[in-house]
């Protein structure tokens, strides 16, 4: 029986024989599980095996792409032929042919060693986790009236073979948890969310790191503050943003502008080598950090991942690239080409994005703020190409005379990221925890982000409250 990687290689070589400049076959064979638990009941529990391949061919200066679940050698060759024809169908319409940065082809097998393969954990145990989480939230606060717990995990192997000789077999796995808790009091209904996960640990992540008790305490504290919170004031105020919000700002507001495919249509265009933030501010995307949700050894083009200092000591220093944009910009291929799965073509995506720690103490960050806000936890965020960002905040406090005051509820912050960067007044020195999450840029990617507490002066950040 021919191994899958060998079939992919034969099909990639066939692409070259047709005349393709580049032929890449990515395949995956994964077990995936999903479950949803609501208020003491299992709403759905689903198991699946997914096998499929993504065929990408560069011919005549444009891409042709086909996805298929037919992994036979004949099926793969037929898809390669289709992708080749698709590429040629557009080649005449393109003025500037697409070229790829050269890389050194690699042959490697990357094993993923987890304590407990999550796809082999008995569903009873997963349901018991959700049930315990439900009971724990109710124990912590009797006003908790509903819960939705979504668990998902995957485990298996991804394969990449190209006509250039790259051949990779990569162990792949993840666990992911999303929780929404609803609480009621005197006719008021509100909710808070929590999201966590790991792509380096298996089920043991829930046994040792994110136990039901740990997750319940975090999400219940948020919903308590939502119930107790007052309405924020509208306008611009000085503020201190906590690690979760700083991470979201790094990812949404700045990281996307540093993705080379978007940089060319963003305010970062033409700013390489220039100061875009005060000295001492450094922001990084790193695909190599231990246990990061976005960590991989190679990207989906077979390029080794790397640490990319997007902003180094205040200067726009580098961009995230795939091979196409590395060639186009003259920058190194940074290992940021990622595809959600075999149904998608790789595109430039972040991995683990964060601000580096600074040298300012907590006391100094809050000192001298007569009135402002301390924003702790994010309810979602979104950026636009004019560097406009919006971050929903589900946990925040007033700062009054340098001290934490009342909690506030249902607030969001916004601004123009390129303006806000220049108004950073202090970067905290404390260690921080990365938050795990998902990014949607047309496809889903598992990512993490974080950073130390950062203080902004009054002006660049607007608070969307009610007058």
């Amino acid at each position, binding site marked *: 029986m021919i191994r899958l990687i060998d079939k992919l290689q034969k099909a990639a070589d066939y692409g070259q024989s047709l005349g393709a400049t580049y032929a890449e076959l990515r395949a995956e064979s994964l077990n*995936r599980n*999903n479950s949803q638990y609501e208020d003491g*009941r299992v709403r*759905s*529990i*689903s*198991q*699946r*095996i997914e096998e*499929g391949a993504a065929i990408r061919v560069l011919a005549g200066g*444009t*891409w042709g*792409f086909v*996805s298929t*679940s037919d992994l036979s050698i004949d099926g793969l060759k037929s898809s390669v032929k*289709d*992708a080749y024809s698709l590429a040629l*169908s557009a080649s005449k319409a*393109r*003025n500037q042919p697409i070229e790829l940065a050269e890389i050194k082809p690699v042959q490697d097998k990357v094993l993923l060693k987890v304590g407990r393969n999550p796809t082999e954990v*008995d569903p009873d145990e997963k*349901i018991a986790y959700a049930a315990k989480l439900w009971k724990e939230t109710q124990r912590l606060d009797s006003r908790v009236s509903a819960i939705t717990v*979504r668990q998902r995990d995957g485990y298996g192997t991804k394969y990449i073979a190209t006509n250039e000789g790259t051949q990779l077999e990569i162990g792949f796995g993840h666990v992911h948890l999303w929780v929404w808790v*609803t609480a009621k009091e005197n006719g*008021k*209904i*509100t*909710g808070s969310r929590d999201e966590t996960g790991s792509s380096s640990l298996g089920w043991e992540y829930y046994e040792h790191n994110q136990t039901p008790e740990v997750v319940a305490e975090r999400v219940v504290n948020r919903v308590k503050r939502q119930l107790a919170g007052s309405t924020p004031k509208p*306008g*611009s105020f000085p503020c201190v943003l906590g690690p979760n919000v700083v991470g979201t700002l790094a990812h949404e507001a700045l990281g996307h502008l540093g993705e080379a495919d978007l940089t*060319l*249509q*963003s*305010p970062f*265009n033409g700013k390489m080598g220039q100061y875009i933030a005060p000295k001492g501010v450094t922001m990084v995307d790193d695909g190599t950090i231990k246990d990061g949700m976005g960590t991989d050894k190679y990207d989906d083009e077979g390029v080794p991942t790397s640490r990319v200092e997007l902003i180094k000591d205040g200067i726009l220093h580098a961009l995230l690239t795939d091979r196409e944009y590395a060639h186009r910009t003259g920058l190194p291929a940074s290992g940021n080409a990622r595809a959600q799965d075999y149904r998608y*073509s790789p595109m430039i995506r972040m991995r683990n994005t964060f601000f580096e720690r600074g040298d300012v103490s907590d006391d100094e960050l809050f000192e001298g703020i007569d009135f402002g806000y301390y924003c702790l936890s*994010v*309810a*979602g*965020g*979104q950026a*636009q*190409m*004019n*560097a*406009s960002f*919006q*971050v*929903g905040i589900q946990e925040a406090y007033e700062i009054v005379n340098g001290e934490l005051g009342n909690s506030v509820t*249902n607030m*969001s912050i*916004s*601004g*123009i990221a390129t303006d806000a960067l220049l108004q950073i007044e202090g970067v905290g020195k404390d260690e921080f925890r990365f938050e795990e999450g998902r990014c949607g840029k047309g496809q889903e990617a598992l990512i993490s982000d974080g950073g130390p507490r950062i203080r902004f002066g009054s002006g*660049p950040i*607007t608070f*969307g*409250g*009610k*007058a």
Partner: protein
Amino acid sequence: MKENRQTLLALAEKTVAYGMKHSDQIEVLIRNNFEISAEIILGEINRTSKSQEAGASIRCVVDQRLGSAFTNRLEQSILEKSVKRAIAAAKASTSDSTWQDFPQPKKYPKEPKVWDNKIPETDPGVFVDMSTTMIQQTKQRDPEIIFGEGGAGGFFGWTAYANSNDIAISDRGTGVYAYAAFVTPIESGMTPMVWTIDVNRNFQLDLDYVVENTLKDVHLAKNSAKGKTETGTVIFNASALDKLLTYAFMPAIKGDNVVREKSMLADKMGDMVASKILSFTDDGLKENGYATELFDGEGVARQKTPLIEKGKLRSFLWNNYWAQRHGGITTGNATRNLRTGVLNIAPTNIVVPGGKRSQEDMISDIKSGYLINGLQGAHSSNQETGDYSVVGNPAFRIKDGKLVGAVHGLMLAGNAFEFIKKAEEVGSDVRAYLSDGGGSIIGPSIQFRNIQVVAKAE
């Protein structure tokens, strides 16, 4: 093409027959969808793609325990293995005392006209040509514009549903789309990205509209205007309104949230919950609607459901499971994520009837206000309280009856349940937009009064 539909239905029925031997109840939903597209990136065609999204979702019930499984391989032997996995999942699940049954057979409406034979047979080169046309038109009209993203494509597919209550039904659908997203450099950096999409279930696309409408918005965005923190008049186009409704209002219309006491509208049936000038209908059979199909994710016939009539709450949206728990009847709004097995409730085509005056005429009467064509961050709204705090982007300043430029960083904050009571005029410019809720909104621009806007400090 005919064989595709029959083959899927036969597979579904065979799988149900197999599953009946091993479980109390079973249902099978099979989809086989294809898409061909040409994609523009930075003013050049970057990629031509052909993708297939095939999959079967199986739900089995054993002793009132529900389990599901998915496979992307549509072969009888694999489907039978998936039945076994669904049964194993059911056995591992907890008993649900509220579980009753899968849907029963009912009469289906006349099959909606959402199939065009030309689309599955279209050569990918046609979509390349359409994309090239849009690139050339844009260059001719304004060579300074950055054609950030865009393209054209077609989709077609078949769905089959069968269950142990003798429902066995199939459907088919096609569609084409073209879209363009532009930015252009300005003194302060870059305009917001503005975009237009045209979608049609038959092979008819208005490429001129896509290019011209996007150019109109990006040209307007080139001029920056100052905003003012105030409570004032704001016009939302239907696309921006959809985002606010999807995340801050529609959750309260969904039956599962009503049963779980998560809906602020749970006890408001028949009450005035919106301005009397507003009516919303969910129409799963709307002619040419993006979300139009014969049946929903549980094989139940799609239908037309008035949600709000002249401000009064008329119905919630239901799927079979939550309707049975509530003691009511499904409205055919089951939506299914094949892969995760989760069955939710979602709107199809939200139809908002238009008014008499054009958006231009409405603007001409406004001394000071804003036009909101896009929203950032609506998904971070509190889906239970309806509180929202979002950025209008693109947001345009209206002064003395004219649009004067784009306001950067204009926030809007308030509560969606209060917001929709403040509608004061419905425009005549009814258009279809894709909805963040998965379907579409077919509606006009709507003018609201007393809306809190927060301008960034200058």
